[in-house]
């Protein structure tokens, strides 16, 4: 086992899957010769050649649309959107074709494709470089949406995404690409898509988060523990389809829930989770489920971003509020 960071885990999963299956092909803007602006695809072109890892013209709709055709003709494209904020030109291809080809053709044509994109804020970046668009993709039937939070999960989930026979949107928390290392098995392995993980057990309240917000949430849980509150923390890992069983089991136990996400509050996945909790665990609730999220604004430029991102302290305040509800 070597200790690697999340970015290296992406690279390792890509390499192992490309080795395992000659149908796997990687392309996107700058991913070939240079190995990606974040270096997620570094050395893949060297190792597998220009026909397995290549630079594309600067056109996201084409990257996805061409990928669809390649998938139909026997390949497994793993394409990169350079930043999730630049996936929008490909929105029509994603919603109208990636997500629907299997259903449209009643299973005759499928799109076993992975669309990777770094997402999220906190890296002091230019406009459009800090987006968290998971709610858009989760509202598109036919897609799976995965957001890992650790090197270990990243490697296993990306491998699973590549082997999945359905299209997967794979959102990588760029803020923590290099934030920490973790022991990760060198051999390949799979973490099943559609399964959340209880990463901290607790009794008083359920905190649900994913991706880069896991760190803030876990820190908040620690802060709460110092104050005698014991949160259970769930790493959702898959945003679509949501692992309702894990969420509901936890909320039934704790009676309380907070969802944490970076994306704007209105219409975010927080609302969907609150709805699920209502539909499945209402009688167990001791307080209304609620959320700590980005504001209903675009992500601010760097001199304002510290206000936007949910912080452990903001989460803690909400935890206290929910735990003290009506007492």
């Amino acid at each position, binding site marked *: 086992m070597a200790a690697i960071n999340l970015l290296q885990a992406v690279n390792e999963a890509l390499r192992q899957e490309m080795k395992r299956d000659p149908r796997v092909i990687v392309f996107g803007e700058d991913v070939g010769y240079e190995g990606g602006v974040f270096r997620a695809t570094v050395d893949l072109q060297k190792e597998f050649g220009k*026909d397995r890892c290549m630079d594309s013209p600067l056109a996201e709709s*084409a990257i996805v649309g061409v*990928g669809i*055709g390649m998938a*139909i003709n026997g390949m497994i494209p793993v394409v990169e959107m350079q930043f999730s904020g630049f996936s929008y030109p490909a929105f*029509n291809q994603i919603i109208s074709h990636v997500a629907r080809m299997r*259903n*449209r053709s009643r299973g005759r*044509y499928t799109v076993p494709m992975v669309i990777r994109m770094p997402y999220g804020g906190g890296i002091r970046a230019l406009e459009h470089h800090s987006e968290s668009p998971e709610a858009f993709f989760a509202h598109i039937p036919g897609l799976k949406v995965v957001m890992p939070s650790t090197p270990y999960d990243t490697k296993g989930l990306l491998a699973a995404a590549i082997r999945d026979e359905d299209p997967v949107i794979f959102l990588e928390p760029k803020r923590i690409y290099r934030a920490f290392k973790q022991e990760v098995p060198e051999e390949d392995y799979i973490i099943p898509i559609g399964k959340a993980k209880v990463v901290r057990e607790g009794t008083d309240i359920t905190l649900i988060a994913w991706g880069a917000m896991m760190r803030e949430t876990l820190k908040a849980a620690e802060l709460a523990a110092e104050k005698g509150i014991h949160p259970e923390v769930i790493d959702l890992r898959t945003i679509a389809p949501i692992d309702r069983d894990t969420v509901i089991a936890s909320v039934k136990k704790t009676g309380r829930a907070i969802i944490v996400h970076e994306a704007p509050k209105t219409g975010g996945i927080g609302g969907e989770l609150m709805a699920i909790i209502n539909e499945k665990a209402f009688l167990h609730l001791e307080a209304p489920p609620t959320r700590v999220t980005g504001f209903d604004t675009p992500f601010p430029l760097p001199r304002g971003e510290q206000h936007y991102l949910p912080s452990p302290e903001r989460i803690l305040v909400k935890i206290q509020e929910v735990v003290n509800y009506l007492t």
Partner: protein
Amino acid sequence: MIFKDYNPLEKKMLQIMDETGTIVKPELMPDLTDDEIKEIYRLMVKTRETDKKALMYQRQGRMLTYAPNLGQEAAQVASAFALEKRDWMVPAFRELGAWLTRGAELEMIYLYWYGNEFGSYVPEDLRILPVSVPIASHLQHAVGIAWAAKLQGKDEVAITYFGDGATSQGDFSESMNWAGVYKAPTVFFCQNNQFAISVPRGIQTAAETIAQKAIAFGMPGIQVDGNDIFAVYAATKEAVDRARRGEGPTLIEAYTYRLGAHTTSDDPTRYRSNDEVEEWSKRDPIDRLKKYLLSKGLLTEEEEAQIVEAYGKLAEEAFKYVEANGETQLEDIFKYHYKEMTPQLVEQMEEYKQFLRERGEI
């Protein structure tokens, strides 16, 4: 060869057979046997007759929206005829003639327009993608299919069909551009039928021809008389051969006219004159080929009548089958989104079935 001699910037349009059915460029006559020409003729008549029936069923309220082919049979049939079985076709939504040429069953095609997804369940032995409605988006898929073939060393070419309107979409340019860069073996076949619903060709682009758009993407472009099967076939064949030889993509503009409505929801008299339509009716692609065949003694009026009748019958049978088998099965709404249904879908299906069960509806 032809591409070199027919530079769209010089306003040259390839025509081999004129409106009277006379071969005006014998030296460019493609290598088609009389039997093959006759086959093309039959497919064009098949297209026309089954198209007519679809319209009729639609008017009777038995078929849903339908996008007629009238006037575009030569463009579709002769181009699809230039492909090999192993090649791929990526259609828009007005390609009945091309589907039939590639061997698709009428039942499937009618089933689609009847409003059932199984009309897009293309049999394994046919390489045709389903109807694609979002204009120009499917061109990207054709490039991907072609490029994947090339990368995998498979000898396959992809042809994609689209209209004059589609050339205004970003996806048109992106896909052409990509195919140029990676020399994906793709044939971009534009049926310029002069209209995008009500919008005339002149509002789509200031370029004098659509063919010349190829220059932007570093590939050859050619304008052909879309109502002349020989011109269409010759250009498509050359484009397919080029692609197969690894020389990259081509843009073909088939200059033609939609004689019917855009779809059955459209009333074309609102936006164009009868005179124009009549003018173009005189250039009917089937009439033209018929004249050629008659003059060569390859067809008689009686034989034509028989062909027409036979295809009419075929259409009736096919539609009968569709009406008897065309209802969507409830579970099919849920079953095909993912390899395996998600728990959410299972729950939603079960809840709905329960609802129906309680009402005695299933």
